[in-house]
């Protein structure tokens, strides 16, 4: 199981509290793209809110983290580190900070 941490607005939209746990398809390495596919399958309301419907690209103010590693600019087939792939740490979807 992959643990995914969502920003507050997306938790509200998906109707969840805390992290969500996902089964990710495939026998190979767990990738960012596969996690997002699984997230959108489980919570269709999140389609279009993390990545663009058509291009599948990350929305500009969304960031992806695995622990302290910023994966935002990695390709969708980038394999997640073992700590995330094994469920020890969450895959974090973060809304860019704003304010001042």
């Amino acid at each position, binding site marked *: 199981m992959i643990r995914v941490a969502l*920003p507050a607005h997306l938790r509200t939209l998906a109707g969840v509290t805390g992290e969500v746990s996902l089964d990710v398809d495939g026998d190979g390495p767990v990738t960012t793209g596969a996690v997002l596919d699984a997230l959108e399958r489980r919570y269709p309301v999140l389609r279009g809110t993390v990545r663009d419907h058509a291009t599948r690209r990350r929305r500009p103010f969304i960031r992806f983290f695995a622990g302290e590693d910023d994966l935002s600019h990695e390709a969708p087939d980038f394999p997640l580190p073992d700590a995330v792939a094994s469920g020890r740490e969450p895959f974090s979807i973060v809304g860019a900070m704003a304010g001042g």
Partner: protein
Amino acid sequence: MSGVRVLVGTRKGAFILTSDGQRRQWDVAGPHFGGWEIYHVKGSPAAPDRLYASQTSGWFGQVIQRSDDGGRTWEAVGNEFAYDGVPGTHQWYDGTPHPWEFARVWHLEPSPTDPDTIYAGVEDAALFRSADGGLTWQELSGLREHGSGPNWQPGAGGMCLHTILLDPADAARMFVAISAAGVFRTDDAGKTWQAANRGLVSEGIPDPDAEVGHCVHRLAMHPSRPDVLFMQKHWDVMRSDDGAGSWHEVSGNLPTDFGFVIDVHAHEPDTIYVVPIHSDSEHYPPEGKLRVYRSRTGGNEWEPLTDGLPQAHCYVNVLRDALAVDDLDPCGVYFGTTGGQVYASADAGDSWTPIVRDLPAVLSVEVQTLP
């Protein structure tokens, strides 16, 4: 007893204000979708408890919400607004070609007869239609593919399609307005469109016959007289008597003819309302006095309506979708401000009372008259 439901979209959520036909005591519900920008909320005339809301965020994109119980509960429906085919380019602010990119839904216009049919005006400017209650959306691409499309430019707020008027007498005819392209009309349910900007004169457009390029802020129509249209343009209040075939100015004695909103009295097709704003560089009322202006003559002769509105130190704006009327008698008029006030008049504008004073900045106000 009849009642009203005021649907308010703000920078930080939606609010629903309800009252009986007296319109003195109000219940305030919300925020719904707290923290999100709610550009517009509108109910179906055919099924008043069916509401649609445009929920949007610079972070998380577009969500469309639907309610079937008058706004008590909501369900997210379809949010995929895919341009038809290869969308091509329009002009960017500097005149260079810029690809069409969906940003958000500015305006939702439900069909007067079918609760599941609804139109959406979006940025970058295009018109979409759903026939399944918002689950899926299809572009009426004849508009964007109008020959002038590559020359359309955004206004300061983006290149938004913000007004959709459906002709109640002819289901095939509708009007839309785009900042800053202008007005377009279809007579075949959206397959083909004609630019409808003859008579508009805009500073910065040297060609007096320019087909497009006008920063139209808002259109209004009385349902009994669909050939008569009123317009608040960037500058100038305009009127058409021939279904947008031509326009003439009716700014008359307004203190300034810049503004955003315009609407028509529910029972008097020649009574119209605007809120003059000092200028396009200041975006607040002249002299710090918040005044609605009413014309009972279809324009040109205007009277200020001030009773109950702040007449000193008021520097709010009233945005293009933030004024509406109910169908009661006397007609109720409502508007919201960027300062978070929603004002109501139960006597056609003669006097005003704030329903709420401290909401987030108001983006839109719609009113439903309930049985």
